[in-house]
């Protein structure tokens, strides 16, 4: 095993994981909502990117916003349908509804895009960088840079802008926010639209690394869970470092032990976290 190569793989994977999970982190931290259709939204983002590039023949730079737009639409529709449940904070029903949406997306994507695997090629994924015996693609570089920029902008928006303040207020106390004249419904719809856009962006950047299938999305969900648990609920910075840690863990586990069981291993890490410090996790906002 080449240590430096695995380190690079781990860092790239880590940024991919952080980006995949960020929608959920914000959803949970800002709106105290969950989305079990997250993995299927990732799948949809990847397929919209693929369709735009290889079927419509449009440039990758057009495909990325197209995928994000599709993500926004799906997120908005989803939240629109379950708005009453959200206002009642009926998390049990919300979980099942989002799971149902994921299943619908899965069926719809198979109907539209077919059930065969596809390769999502971008102009950057074909450009290799060799550095001694180390290897990565420009797609990997773009992914890391985009993730870092995305996290910096997001952190700034949540902490220092009016939009961020409003969202945080709704998360803290929805009835009070309502009294303060904030349109709570709009915030919920906005947060879900953001979740859709974020996961679609992640898909457009990460999916070129592996073949894509309409049945995929489950590994991404586990990754998201682990990042959210490790990083602390709703913590943007926490989920960045958790993503990075998970990426490194996955790269080394895959190289040293077995690539087939990386998801299972990541899951065991999460269980260990939950058992070792259940109080810390259970006491976090949103886990009521």
């Amino acid at each position, binding site marked *: 095993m080449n240590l430096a190569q695995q380190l690079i793989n781990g860092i790239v994977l880590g940024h991919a994981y952080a980006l995949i999970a960020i929608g959920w982190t914000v959803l949970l931290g800002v709106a105290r909502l*969950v989305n079990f259709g997250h993995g299927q939204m990732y799948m949809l983002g990847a397929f919209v990117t693929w369709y735009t590039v290889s079927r419509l023949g449009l440039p990758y730079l057009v495909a990325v916003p197209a995928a994000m737009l599709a993500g926004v639409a799906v997120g908005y529709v989803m939240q629109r*349908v379950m708005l009453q449940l959200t206002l009642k904070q009926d998390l*049990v029903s919300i979980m099942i*509804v989002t*799971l149902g*949406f994921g299943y619908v997306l899965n069926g719809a994507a198979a109907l539209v895009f077919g059930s065969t695997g596809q390769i999502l090629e971008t102009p950057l994924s074909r450009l290799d960088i060799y550095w001694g015996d180390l290897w990565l693609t420009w797609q990997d570089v773009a992914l890391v840079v985009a993730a870092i920029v995305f996290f910096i902008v997001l952190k700034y928006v949540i902490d220092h802008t009016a939009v961020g303040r409003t969202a945080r207020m709704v998360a803290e106390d929805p009835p009070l926010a309502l009294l303060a004249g904030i349109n709570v419904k709009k915030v919920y719809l906005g947060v879900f639209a953001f979740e859709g856009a974020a996961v679609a962006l992640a898909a457009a950047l990460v999916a070129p690394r592996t073949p894509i299938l309409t049945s995929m999305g489950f590994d991404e969900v586990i990754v998201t869970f682990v990042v959210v648990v490790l990083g602390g609920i709703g913590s943007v910075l926490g989920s960045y470092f958790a993503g990075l840690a998970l990426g490194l863990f996955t790269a080394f586990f895959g190289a040293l032990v077995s690539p087939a*069981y990386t998801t299972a291993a990541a899951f065991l890490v999460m269980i260990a976290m939950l058992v070792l410090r259940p109080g810390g996790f*259970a006491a976090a906002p949103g*886990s009521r």
Partner: protein
Amino acid sequence: MAPALRLALIVAIAAAGLFAPALLGGTGAVYSAAVLIAIFAVMAYGLDMIVSDLGEVSLAHTVFFAIGAYAAAMLATRLGLGPVATLLGAIILAVVAAAILGVVTLRLKEFVFSLVTYAVAVVAMTVAANWEFLGGSDGLRGIPPFTLAPLGLRAETDAQLWPVAYGLLLVTLYLMHAFRRSRLGQAAVMVHLNPRLATMSGIDPKRTRLQIFLLSAPVTAAAGWLYAYQRSFVSADLLETYFLILMLTSVVLVGRRLLLGPLIGVALVQIQEKFFSFGGYVDKIVLGSVLVVVLAFLPGGLVGLGRSLVALGRRRGESVAGSMPDVRTVKD
């Protein structure tokens, strides 16, 4: 109605149910659908206890279903055991798995509990698909037909398997009925609806949840056990989301805490898929949409919808009948 008469009526209806597939034409397709409805209904009842009574969502019930099926397949093909022994094995394994999962998640509530159970289901699928011991991606083939020599039963076809499936369904229905009247069943509802009152009444919510988890897992596993004989092979596809969505939809479709709710729910979904199918992908969209629509717009399920329609009709009728609303309606 006198209790004896009531019992006789229930027994008569239950006995009549055995002949339902024959009355519906008795073709192979009808028997297949009937067997699958019975098996999937049993599967759904396991989850029904958790969702309807306890008010939480376990997404790991596909794992118990798969454990039941894999236990039957492994014990039958590798050790040559008969259905009774494999059922015992399936139940023991499911209880052990539920105990481990239940203890680990004991302190987790609501969505964290669901999140972990969902993760368990996803990870179980990757393990089942990769572990050679469980047959890997090929699964396990060549499960012998369901045979009970003392009863002279050898089920080569779905028609021959139907009495077994129906029997399992009746046992499950009885179990659900007894559970809802039991102390544990009452405790579950109290924990669900009023946790503080439950604690004050000396009920430990965590203990109750663990007990119900241990009771519900073998029910779903028993369904998996029979499904293995029905299909004569098992593979990692048992852990697919389909079974989870099917379970959840059947539990919420008709209405919660109704004894026959999940059975009717499963039957509606299976009849649509077997006899009025629009193709696999569209069926997926239909099933997922039904789940979404029921939860988002019909919190009381079809029964709740029926009730509000009846109430609406009655109110209309009353307002037409007399311009002065009577005292009762004002009070409503």
